[in-house]
């Protein structure tokens, strides 16, 4: 399955992908029912044959409900987990077959920001050490004054100003937004090409979200860093992403540029997801009676046959429960995994808000 087609229309982005997942799968072993000989185990495919490419200085958003494999895909991309099938490629090379030097380059080029900075920052380290350790690790030997200067410069970069106020603080002495800034500072210390951000905003208040979004945007412009942004907040994705990948139960069901996915979504799941978003616009809320999809994401242990979305799909037909759909190319960059995309006036039955 290829999500991003390598066809001539890609010529607008001539560079090679920084990082790519090629048909990766990930299998978890889950405890199942108790049988005669103890507890049986079930194998669940959290990510199933997924291909995505991330180009330099691009924001790729991965969206979907919880339990759709977004975080697992992120962990695979970071090399934190071994894929059960397929490969993760860093600048065209499989990350499992990298030389020692290339491995170092990979870890330097691809950084991560987690959702909850309180659990990803060491609670026993002050900010100067959290950042300083990384500076020392990657920056080599620096004179004390140059070292301090560098640490302060990084804190200024993430707008923790004046830095001296923050250097001596422990993570618990910072507010949520400040902690997330420290986590971002950690990531940018090594001047990466790509930051994988797993729900970086969901623990924050709206006003702080706005500030962090601005920061991420500024870093993208100033340092040419790209992002893999995992988020369930479609409004955020809409405002920052260049391309969007929609996941459902471990599969990529739709992908395309942000305009394609938000303005003319083709997959019933994407349309339902967009239809569920509550926009802060009371006039629109009063005008529209939403069509909601029923139910929740089923367990990965019992993946529905055929198209995985068919039990919740408002436009499913008999064929959907039997045949596994294949990618339908809507345009050069826009792909949807659905039997009924090609039929006229079918998916349009699911109303979506106008963006």
């Amino acid at each position, binding site marked *: 399955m290829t999500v991003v087609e390598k066809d001539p229309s890609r010529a607008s982005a001539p560079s090679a992908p920084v990082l790519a997942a090629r048909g990766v799968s990930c299998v978890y072993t889950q405890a199942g029912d108790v049988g005669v000989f103890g507890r049986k185990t079930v194998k669940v495919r959290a990510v199933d044959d997924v291909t995505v490419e991330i180009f330099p200085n691009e924001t790729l958003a991965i969206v979907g*409900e*919880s339990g759709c494999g977004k975080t697992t895909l992120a962990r695979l991309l970071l090399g934190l987990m071994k894929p059960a099938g397929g490969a993760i490629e860093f600048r065209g090379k499989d990350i499992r077959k990298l030389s020692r030097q290339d491995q170092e380059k990979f870890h330097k080029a691809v950084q991560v920001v987690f959702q909850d900075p309180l659990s990803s920052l060491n609670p026993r380290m002050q900010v100067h050490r959290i950042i300083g350790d990384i500076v020392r690790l990657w920056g080599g030997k620096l004179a004390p004054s140059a070292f301090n200067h560098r640490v302060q410069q990084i804190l200024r970069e993430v707008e923790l100003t004046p830095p001296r106020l923050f250097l001596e603080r422990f993570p618990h002495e910072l*507010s*949520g*937004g400040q902690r997330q800034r420290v986590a971002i500072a950690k990531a940018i210390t090594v001047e990466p090409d790509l930051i994988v951000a797993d729900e970086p905003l969901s623990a924050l*208040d*709206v*006003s*702080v*979200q*706005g*500030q962090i*979004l*601005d920061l991420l945007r500024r870093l993208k412009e100033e340092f040419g860093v790209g992002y893999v942004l995992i988020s*369930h*907040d*479609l*409004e*955020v994705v*809409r*405002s*920052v992403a260049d391309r969007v990948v929609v996941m459902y139960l471990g599969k990529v069901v739709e992908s395309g540029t942000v305009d394609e996915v938000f303005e003319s979504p083709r997959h019933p799941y994407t349309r*339902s*997801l967009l*239809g*569920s*978003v*509550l*926009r*802060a*616009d*009371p*006039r*629109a*809320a009063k005008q529209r009676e*939403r069509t*909601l*999809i*029923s139910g*929740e*994401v089923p367990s990965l242990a019992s993946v529905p046959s055929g198209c995985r979305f068919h039990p919740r799909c408002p436009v499913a037909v008999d064929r959907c429960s039997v045949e596994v759909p294949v990618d339908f190319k809507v345009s050069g960059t826009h792909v949807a995994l659905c039997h009924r995309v090609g039929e006229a006036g079918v998916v349009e039955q699911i109303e979506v808000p106008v963006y």
Partner: protein
Amino acid sequence: MSSTSADTSTFSSTAAEDDAKLLEVRGLTVHLNVRDRVVKAADNVNLEVGAGECVGLVGESGSGKTMVARTIVGLLPTVRLKCCDGEVVLDGTEMLGLPSKELRRARRGRVSMIFQEPTSYLNPTMRIGTQIAEALPSGLGRMEVEDRIKALLAQAGLPPGLGIERRYPHQLSGGMKQRAMIALALASNPKLLIADEPTTALDVTVQAQVLRTLKHLHQERGMAILLITHDLGVIAEMCDRVYVMYAGEIVEAADTMSLFEDPRHPYTRMLLNSLPHKRHEGEEVLKGSIPDLSMLGSGCRFMPRCPHASEVCRDEQPLRVRTDGRAARCVLEDSPADRAASNKGPQHRGDDAPASRAVVR
């Protein structure tokens, strides 16, 4: 309802309007002891919910909205409580300072509350059905209890075929747990449901489903809802009226449409500007964060973050009520016409009385 006459003496509103008031919070002040400091979680909060109305209380985390909700139902952390002042009149009964037994009686049939994290409020060792049965009035036959449980679950959007009543909380998904909690809240047939961030922990799709259920209950049972949330999208979808809370104070009160289209307080305006889809238009963006509630000075609490702050803001700011019933706690509201209007009331009560009037509509 016995206090209706008392109300009419305090407010110059008609008796019909008084009847419509289900919940009245007047001058509510809650201070807590945290370590050796005093946290002013809520200061002089006035709010009202009419019968069958859906009212939103919106604010960032740390703005004191949950404390207000907890005070209404009498769930304050008594160990830490320094002072709790003001009036909470729910359906004619003063709720503050009631001993626990009477408080329980006062809540029954009047108010129920649902929370953000249903897992921590459902009993993990009891089946859902048993928990609901406990909340039902006593003296019902077994069959009747079972029927009532099924009916309640169905109203909360859990159809009888699922056999939810036989399950334990851990066997349910997040959305189902929240629905089970709604069923539990409905068991006493309350006139007011206080929902504290009911959908924050849920996926967008499930959030929309649960909110739709709440909306149906609101419309069909005529149940009033006080919806506490930080999510302006939820407010836009659900509420008739909104109170905006900042650092323990109500800074703005308005009907939903006016609030979104013409926010009066700089905080509200900037909060709306922080929304991702408004970013490109927004010139004023919120910087910094909510002040430490244990180190508040006098004067406007938003002053340090406000782009329009001036010397006047160092003085305490009353909630200014306009003739159209909107209210904002900001000097900018003092356009000459409005000032004349707000001067009609007695000066020293500028803070309390007009605020209550503001929400009478």
